[in-house]
């Protein structure tokens, strides 16, 4: 959970450095005229994923490990973990159906594609309202562009994104707009890219004081929940909007059921777990084996007061693993990189300290449907092969401590990481790598220092992850040579390969899906051949503990759910609180009465290798 949040945070921050500079086509001067022959599309035929039996009401209690430094969505310090609650209530024009992955209406009811492959037209839902009752109109989308481009928000990433990628918003009337992107893309990718969120024009006053003035102001939003009360340093409470405009929309019905969502600050994970086991929190993420096997045991589980669910999902997997810096003199040799991959005993890590719970990741991009190259298999632990490659690279002799030496230099590599929870995993890898004559020095840094080191490309091996996402994998920011050998870009392996550059550009420019899929497969193979990324593991599921009074739809969650008991967001809001059950359970806790224990394993969306 933490790792994911961090990955997402890093992803956002790093994205800033990875934006292509494209020629800017500003808004045209002629009066906007909607093209006549547009083919309007919508989607009201996909199945709903909520449960009509859901009951509204109650208070859902969750936690966060630190209090947010601001309530702004953008600007300094806005990238804390808390911001996702705000973003989830800041709806977009369209969203993705979490099971079918088709587009579904959100703030727009219909959309149409322009033949240029860069522009999408939207018909806005006239019923959409801000929290304060003001209707959402085309002007709020125009304002998004103005707002995100403003230097007053002190958000360079957004400034850049809404200038270089989202190049224009055109208003045709109050409820019809077009959004344009810089380069042509296949329709589905384009649609989700340009599905921006509106910004309430009537709320913001953009000037040099905006950052301070709006730090603690509650911005009107379009989603089901709005912040109701705050105690600084203690909690933030959201309240369900009783007359929310989306209540009866097909894909919003029966969702977002609790009346209140209270997010309490609990700074220590172990203490938070104690709160949960005492019934002070309703659900708790148990992905880490330590929590699932050691903590989540005993009487409340045996009595059936607390249930456990393991839910397999099918989403783009975060890119976890080791990133080798090719600018390092030792790692510049491809043979050393291959040898290192063969010296990493991930199987042992997976079957022992991770208790066989995680799965070996095979290649960088997994979970992207057709785009995933399923033929690639990660290099296995094989001392014979490691030995061959190291001999080929000239590391033939072993020193008195069993570590290989070449020209007086020891084969000693530094691995930088930032989570103490990962130390046991790395300790096992270190001990096993010694067998190949490689010394790994563990360098545990705090998150900011690790991020800084990697961004300045001063690492040798970075143990980290990138949050996956989108429809298709991206390669340009990670492997194109324009991003190599310089700080603050995502090419942290400093990969510099002309053949790969050409293919990356071809992939970016291709607009039909078949070509893109073929190029993605070829690129993935090149990433493998380069050997600068050593895949570690993936977690194709979420595991949570929950009190018996939380009820779920029969299908529990969706294909895209990161979290089963997610109160908000595109995949969330499916569960509800059964107040009668709650009082029964509370009574039973006093009398000692038992229920049937709950142990759910849902493999409906499990991807078998």
């Amino acid at each position, binding site marked *: 959970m933490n790792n994911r949040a961090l990955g997402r945070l890093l992803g956002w921050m790093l994205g800033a450095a990875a934006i292509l500079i494209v020629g800017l086509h500003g808004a045209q001067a002629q009066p906007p005229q909607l093209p006549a022959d547009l083919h309007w599309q919508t989607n009201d035929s996909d199945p709903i994923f909520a449960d009509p039996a859901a009951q509204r009401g109650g208070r859902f209690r969750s936690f966060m490990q630190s209090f947010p430094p601001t309530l702004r969505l953008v600007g300094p310090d806005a990238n804390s973990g808390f911001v996702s609650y705000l973003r989830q209530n800041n709806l977009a024009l369209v969203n993705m159906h979490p099971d079918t992955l088709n587009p579904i209406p959100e703030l727009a009811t219909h959309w149409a594609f322009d033949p240029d492959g860069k522009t999408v037209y939207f018909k806005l839902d006239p019923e959409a309202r801000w929290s304060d009752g003001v209707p959402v109109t085309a002007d709020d989308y125009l304002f998004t562009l103005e707002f995100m481009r403003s230097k007053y928000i002190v958000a360079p990433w957004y400034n850049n994104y809404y200038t270089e990628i989202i190049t224009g918003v055109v208003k045709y009337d109050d409820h019809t707009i077009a959004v344009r992107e810089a380069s042509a893309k296949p329709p589905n990718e384009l649609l989700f890219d340009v599905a921006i969120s509106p910004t309430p024009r009537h709320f913001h006053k953009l000037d040099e004081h905006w950052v301070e003035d709006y730090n603690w102001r509650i911005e009107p939003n379009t989603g089901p929940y709005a912040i109701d009360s705050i105690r600084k340093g203690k909690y933030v409470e959201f309240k369900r909007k009783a007359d929310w405009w989306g209540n009866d929309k097909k894909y919003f019905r029966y969702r977002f059921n609790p009346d209140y969502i209270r997010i309490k600050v609990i700074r220590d994970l*172990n203490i938070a777990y104690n709160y949960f086991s005492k019934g002070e929190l309703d659900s708790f993420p148990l992905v880490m*084996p330590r929590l699932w096997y*050691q903590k989540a045991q005993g009487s409340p589980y045996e009595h059936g007061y607390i249930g456990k669910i393991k839910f397999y999902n099918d989403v783009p997997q975060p890119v976890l693993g080791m990133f080798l810096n090719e600018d390092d003199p030792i790692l510049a040799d491809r043979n050393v990189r291959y040898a290192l991959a063969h010296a990493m005993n991930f199987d042992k890590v997976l079957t022992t*300290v991770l*208790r066989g719970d995680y799965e070996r990741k095979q290649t960088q991009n997994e979970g992207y449907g057709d785009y995933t190259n399923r033929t690639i298999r990660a290099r296995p632990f094989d001392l014979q092969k490691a030995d061959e490659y190291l001999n080929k690279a000239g590391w033939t002799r*072993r020193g008195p*401590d069993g570590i290989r030496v070449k020209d007086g230099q020891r084969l000693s590599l530094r691995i930088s990481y930032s989570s103490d929870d990962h130390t*046991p995993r790395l300790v096992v890898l270190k*001990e096993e790598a010694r*067998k190949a004559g490689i010394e790994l020095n563990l360098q545990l840094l705090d998150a900011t220092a690790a991020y800084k080191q990697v961004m300045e490309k001063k690492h040798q091996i970075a143990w980290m992850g990138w949050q996956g996402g989108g429809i298709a994998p991206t390669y340009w920011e990670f492997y194109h040579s324009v991003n190599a050998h310089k700080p603050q870009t995502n090419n942290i392996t400093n990969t510099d390969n002309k053949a790969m550059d050409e293919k990356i550009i071809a992939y970016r420019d291709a607009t039909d899906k078949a070509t893109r899929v073929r190029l993605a497969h070829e690129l993935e193979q090149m990433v493998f051949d380069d050997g600068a990324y050593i895949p570690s593991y993936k977690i194709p599921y979420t595991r949570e503990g929950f009190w018996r009074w939380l009820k779920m739809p029969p299908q529990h969650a969706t294909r895209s759910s990161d979290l089963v008991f997610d109160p908000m967001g595109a995949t969330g809001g499916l569960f509800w609180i059964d107040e009668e059950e709650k009082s029964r359970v509370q009574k039973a806790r006093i009398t000692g009465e038992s229920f049937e224990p709950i142990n759910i394993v849902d493999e409906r969306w499990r991807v078998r290798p």
Partner: protein
Amino acid sequence: MIMFGLRVNPVTRRRWSRFRSLRRGYWSALLLGALIALSLVAELLINNRALIVHYQDHWYFPTYADVMPGTTFGQDYAYETDYKALRRQFAAEGGGNWVLMPPIPYSPFETDLRADQFPPLPPSLEGRHLLGTDTTGRDILARLVYGFRTAIGFSLLLLVLEYGIGVGIGCLMGFWGGGFDLGFQRIIEVWSNIPTLYVIMIVASIVPPGFWTLLLIMAAFGWTSMTWYMRTATYKEKARDYVMAARAIGAGGGRIVLRHILPNTVSTVVTFIPFSIAAGIAALSALDYLGFGLPPPTPSWGELLKQGTDNLESLWIVSSVVVAMTLVLTLVTFIGEAIREAFDPKVQIHYE
């Protein structure tokens, strides 16, 4: 009287015999000394390297030697020999080959992971994990002992550095007095207000500290308290008649400080030593606990304590480190009390 080959004066002799008569402190000192001595040869007691290997009529002593690859003993791998497996193999084969392992056949870095059990493993005699294993499957006893060696070594070195600087500067402040004294007082007042822990945290967030950097940082901020005692003691001694007498017969400043004043002020210093050692151990453990100490996987008490409090279900982790820490700190405190009493001037001086 000659003690430890040194000529000692009667006062010291009296102090020593008084210290010996304080049974609790004396036995604590012996016990702690024994523990330190044992930890210095920990490789012979707790190690995954064999003590002796007898293979094809050759004798091998791997403990303090270079890594012996498996090929040395007819194995098919080039990495360090797995002596536990070798021992089982030799025992099964019979013949003249044999391996003698230390009583605890695990190193503090070795992960003992089994396919059917997940770490941490509870204490067991059978698996030779007398105190169980930690969350990575490493032997807790091994990590405790090697961690103790690191902690006590760190603490003693820290003591030498801090006292070296503190006593030197304090003594000079007292002896020279005047502007030097005034100037240094102000410097020390400012310096001692810098919070050491934050400095270490800041440094640790930029470069991960090693043993020596940590030692130097802590010494750089820890020497100040000693100066006040030394300054006062030196002022007092300087005014005594014997110093005047030494000066009268033409002794130089250096000689007076080193031969006359220092030996007479040393009792002040000695009484602080045990408490400084305890403080050093506690400080290092605290830093390790917070994650700003020695880099992983260095065996350390603070790191074990952190694991223990994070995994309270595995009670053997936290209990072994807490017991060990309490034991050592209690011993040190007992010694400290005894030294303080032995050096108490009220017992030594008779007013007439």
